[in-house]
């Protein structure tokens, strides 16, 4: 059975079904249960935007409210996973990673390698990414590149409810540490989602829209913007292919290269700051791999090299949108190799 549910609900459903499947699986984070022990109604939060709401009621003490001490509880998640207890831990906003980064950079990511290749760390870190809700400089970042840079981590960022559910279940069943980036701006968007559990393998990009003239490669909150751009371009007679990477590490180079070899033109888009981001990564890899297929200079669409401003008008100007993608496509169509 397939229903239309929100991206937020799809994640909740994935967690729910995996908690039911694996009696060892734990969830923890700040207010992940929400209000347990406070004396009023329990399970009223489910994290700051309510993603895990209802799970405490179903799974009791396996859903744990952690103190706001991310280094300790993220590290505890790593340690528990290393000891054979799989954990989904939440760091509410990716912006907060600065207070627990070592446990991901130097512990979770490196333990298997440093220990000679036998340890397994069945760990998922859920975290919200991206701007668009007036969260200002410390609640809006898209720090995916930082994690993609680090060997030993996997990095996921879905753009649809369907993918969110399938990728979350895959992430939980995966034996490596996964940074699961949830585009909070898309939490309330709806889409078709099968009711039964299913997985989407990592490293398989999705062709969100087929096209002939230009490949727009992106992920997460930029996907709907790219699709919007593609549909406007269609009206101008330009057929854009939109590729949703789904996982940034591992990266599905094959799908991207195949698309660019077909279209000969590339626009890589990332909501992140422009230096060393996913867009630069894609452009560099594509150029190195299939330079001769390129008919024009690949173009990048990113946010500016500034923190995320609070003012709604500035934030709107900050977030790269369909307009910027269309402009980038136009540049690739205009120029000639």
């Amino acid at each position, binding site marked *: 059975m397939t229903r239309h549910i929100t991206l937020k609900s799809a994640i909740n459903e994935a967690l729910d079904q995996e908690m039911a499947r694996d009696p060892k699986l734990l969830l923890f984070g*700040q*207010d992940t249960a*929400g*209000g*347990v*022990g*406070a*004396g*009023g*109604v*329990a399970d*009223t*939060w489910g994290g*700051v935007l309510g993603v895990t709401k209802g799970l405490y009621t179903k799974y009791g003490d396996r859903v744990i*409210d952690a*103190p*706001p*001490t*991310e*280094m*300790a509880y993220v590290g505890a998640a790593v340690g528990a996973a290393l000891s054979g207890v799989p954990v989904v831990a939440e760091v509410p906003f990716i*912006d*907060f990673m*600065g*207070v627990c980064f070592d446990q991901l950079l130097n512990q979770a990511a490196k333990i298997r390698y440093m220990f000679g290749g036998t340890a397994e760390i069945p760990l998922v870190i859920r975290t919200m990414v991206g701007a668009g*809700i*007036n*969260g*200002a*400089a*410390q*609640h809006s970042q898209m720090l995916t590149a930082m994690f993609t840079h680090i060997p030993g981590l996997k990095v996921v960022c879905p753009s649809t409810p369907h993918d969110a559910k399938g990728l979350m279940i895959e992430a939980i069943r995966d034996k490596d540490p996964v940074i699961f980036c949830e585009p909070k701006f898309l939490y309330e968007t709806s889409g078709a989602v099968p009711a039964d559990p299913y997985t989407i393998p990592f490293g398989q990009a999705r062709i969100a829209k087929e096209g002939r003239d230009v490949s727009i490669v992106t992920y997460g909150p930029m996907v709907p913007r790219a699709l919007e751009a593609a549909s406007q371009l269609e009206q101008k007679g330009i057929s854009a292919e939109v590729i949703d990477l789904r996982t940034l590490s591992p990266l599905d180079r094959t799908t991207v290269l195949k698309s660019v070899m077909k279209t000969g033109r590339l626009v890589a888009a990332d909501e992140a700051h422009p230096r060393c981001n996913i867009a630069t990564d894609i452009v560099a890899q594509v150029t190195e791999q299939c330079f001769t297929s390129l008919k024009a200079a690949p173009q990048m669409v990113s946010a*500016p*090299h*500034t*923190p995320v*401003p*609070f*003012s*709604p*008008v*500035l934030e709107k*100007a*900050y977030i790269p949108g369909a307009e910027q993608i269309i402009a980038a496509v136009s540049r690739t169509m205009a120029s000639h190799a």
Partner: protein
Amino acid sequence: MSHDKKEQHAYNASIPHDTVLSAYRRMKTIRMFEDRLHEDFKTGNVPGFAHLYAGQEATAVGICSHLTDQDQIASTHRGHGHCIAKGVGVVAMMKEIYGRQGGICNGKGGSMHIADLKKGMLGANGILGAGAPLACGAALADKLAGQGHVAIVFGGDGGVNEGAVLESMNLASVWKLPLMFVVEQNGYAQSTPQQRTTSVSSYEDRAKGFGMPAATVDGLDFFAVYKTAGALIQKMREGHGPVLLECRTVRFYGHFEGDDQVYRPAGEVDDARKNHDCLKLFAESARNMGISQAELDRIDHEVAELIDRAVQESLKAPHPALSELHDGVYVSY
């Protein structure tokens, strides 16, 4: 009347009326500012998140009343009260929260990043605990300057468990910095009750773990806060090291606007508003000191006008120019 109460009464009587009235004005300004935001949030005109300080006014004002612009404070996500207590302009604050030109950060910071370095206000902070290391630095600068200035860092009962705060307690103590750690114990970190975030029931015990003297006061009683904080701050000015002050207080609104706080025991908030309202308690004490209700009413009236003006001006203020997006990242680049 107990000895303690008598002593407090005598102490209260020793505070100049001017000081009392100006504290009242600040507390009332905070309350009306927050109550107004609570209302205006419903209009959809206020962007982003806001964590309201209503209920906790006596703490911020009781402490900041001892400070000059040269003393510095570092604040939290729940920062409006600290800002107003430290003398930051209310109109510029409101404009900031509305994200407008003329906001104290030109609309680029918002509620969680209000700062005014000229007033010694080092910023609200969207990262729990992050103000503590910054305040260590401010206190170090103070110590080296040798002018007797001090720094204060505010934190909530949940947030002070962050490694950044705990390391800062150790650092401040090892370096003997003139830094006061204020713990505003309002019982909750978001929806999580204090005993689920913190391994001690009194933060005085926590302070012992870092070799720091500490005190606990009724954070709802301005005069108690003022007295205790005053003594601790004076010691710091004289060259003693860091201290911790736990202020037991209550949060009137939800964690942020939109939180219905049903996780709290039924009646808890109503009871707090009725029986533990620091402004009511203040007015009562003030009257006991011979300050007339009329004087207080006059202040109430002026504050109401100020808040109203702040909102009106904010609504009228233009949005920042788009060119602002790129400005102010670096001094030079």
